[in-house]
């Protein structure tokens, strides 16, 4: 029994490790493409925060919904966005998930329950609350999740959204990815309260975990989501993490003194790899995983580069949904 459990947990961890690595490598490739000028606009990378996206989504069903934020690539990929369609979107191609109209800050696949990254800090909160309202109303038993950073704790919409969800009894999990930074400023200089005090003040079930350990995130998320789903109530999960890169790619981070070793020590991939190796997985096994993901990314990027340029007239004709689309 113990052995079986351990093997199941290792199996879960291995699957989560692969997913985290996939997100990491996909974003690193994106950074390289961005540096080459192939990706237009702004990109905000979630490098170092993959355990939160993967751990939380591992506790969701496929038809549960997720609202994300500007640092949303990890959430989107964890929720099942097709990698080619993801790169196609980021390269501004017509075959992209959003037909080249959204880009990095708006990656979405509603068919997968991914309600979109969001360019407005905090805006995903009320969207997730509304999605939870639909879930409750339509009776399908789904839950909604919103991912937001600690910078968003300063947004008034947090109060309105949590209160509304609590008053209406909506199945929504608020996940705060606390990486210590509110864009270019330290959150410690921006926020005068502990999120825990706030959340418990509303009577919400609050948990805080080491957000760079995917096992801990997954276990906590399972607990919160089970409660949220069973009782149709909002709950909160705060995940302590580290933002490895700047606010956006290209941010020189002059406002920040970096401690590389601390970041490396807590790298969610290393944390997971160490646990897998302790359980008997070899360096070679892990290297093989990486090789296969690299191949997948190579193919996806190659595919994306061949995408077509979106047609302006097509886009202009699609500002409004047409009646048949209902």
């Amino acid at each position: 029994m113990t052995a079986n459990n351990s093997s199941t947990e290792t199996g879960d961890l291995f699957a989560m490790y692969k997913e985290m690595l996939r997100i990491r490598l996909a974003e690193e490739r994106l950074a390289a493409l961005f540096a080459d000028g192939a990706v237009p606009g702004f990109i905000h990378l979630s490098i170092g925060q993959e355990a939160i996206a993967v751990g939380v989504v591992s506790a969701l069903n496929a038809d549960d919904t997720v609202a994300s934020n500007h640092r949303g690539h990890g959430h989107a990929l964890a929720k099942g966005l097709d990698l080619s369609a993801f790169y196609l979107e980021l390269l501004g191609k017509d075959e992209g998930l959003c037909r080249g109209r959204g880009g990095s800050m708006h990656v979405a696949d509603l068919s997968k329950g991914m309600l979109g990254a969001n360019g407005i800090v905090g805006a995903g909160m009320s969207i997730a609350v509304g999605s939870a309202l639909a879930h409750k109303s339509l009776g399908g038993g789904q839950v909604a999740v919103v991912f937001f950073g600690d910078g968003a704790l300063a947004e008034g919409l947090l109060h309105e959204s949590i209160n509304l969800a609590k008053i209406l009894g909506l199945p929504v999990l608020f996940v705060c990815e606390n990486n210590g930074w509110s864009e270019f400023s330290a959150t410690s200089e921006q926020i005068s309260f502990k999120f825990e005090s706030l959340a418990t003040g509303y009577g919400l079930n609050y948990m805080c975990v080491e957000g760079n350990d995917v096992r801990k995130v997954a276990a906590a998320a399972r607990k919160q989501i089970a409660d949220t789903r069973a009782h149709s109530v909002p709950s909160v999960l705060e995940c302590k993490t580290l933002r490895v890169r700047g606010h956006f790619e290209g941010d020189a981070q002059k406002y920040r003194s970096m401690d590389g070793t601390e970041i490396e020590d807590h790298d969610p991939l290393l944390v997971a790899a160490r646990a897998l190796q302790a359980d008997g997985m070899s360096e070679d096994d892990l290297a093989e995983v990486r090789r296969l993901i690299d191949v997948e990314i190579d193919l996806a990027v190659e595919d994306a580069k061949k995408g077509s340029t979106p047609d302006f007239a097509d886009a202009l004709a699609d500002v409004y949904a047409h009646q048949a689309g209902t």
Partner: protein
Amino acid sequence: MEVINYGRSLNNALADAMTDDSRVVVMGEDIGAAGGPFGVTRGLLEKFGSDRVIDTPISEAAIVGAATGAAMSGLKPVVEIMFMDFSTLAMDAIVNQAAKAHFMFGGQRPVPMVVRTPHGGGLNAGPQHSQCLEAWFAHIPGLKVVCPSSAANAYGLLRAAIDDPNPVIFVEHKGLYAKKAEVENSRSSQIIGKAAVVRVGTDATIVSYGASVNTALEAADLLAEKGIEVEIVDLQSIQPWDRDAVLDSVKKTNRLVIAHEAVEAFGVGAEIAATVADIGFDYLDAPIVRVGAAFMPVPFAASLESGYSPNASDIERAVRRTLD
């Protein structure tokens, strides 16, 4: 045919839409037990229950944001924002989220939702409870803006707004809620984007919408006493607006006045005037004249507010200017 007031017409539209489609929910402040500050949602809670008639806290931003998320997840929410002035608190949800979700996500899903909200003065409600802000929303690609002028078109336009796969800002006028009109006993919806000619005339065209249509009709009576016959086009929908109907009328009368209660500067009238001056230039025998409110916050005192709001004589004078 039956004679009912504007509020009842809207209430019937909500009730019928909720009966016909279980995905339609209404939500807002004091709309359930209290029946809405203007009574538009009266009786719906008793009929449809609290899962579909949702009383919310005073949280405009979260209400409209939640409606957006709900619309993306399978519902057709109809939100009430108690006064149009309060829509400022929900601007991100309306402008950055709801308006863009269909386009920005590559047309993956429609966002079928309605934000009902009353505008307009005449109640001495002061600077923060009287504004007509429809031009702001008409400026945002992705939003539709509808504004019924009477009980007769309120029902069909609200049904159309609820049926529409896009976010619709549905602007009601506080001064019209109690006003009665003859309405058809049908459950049919109108077409958003179609204007109605509510008075036929040959000498000049007055384009208007909402409660100002009544002011235009009063002006038309004053002008008719002097032998001037104006045609009145009720836009019904501001975004999109019915260019063909306006141009057809101007082609016939060769003179155009646009009248609305909203502040004249940078308003709906400016858009229509610019369009007609461009593609309808050859039809015009006189400069286009706009009638709108003075460029000031809506004042409280009755003496001040009556100076602020355009009245029938203002419109009458404007028509005369086009005939000089």
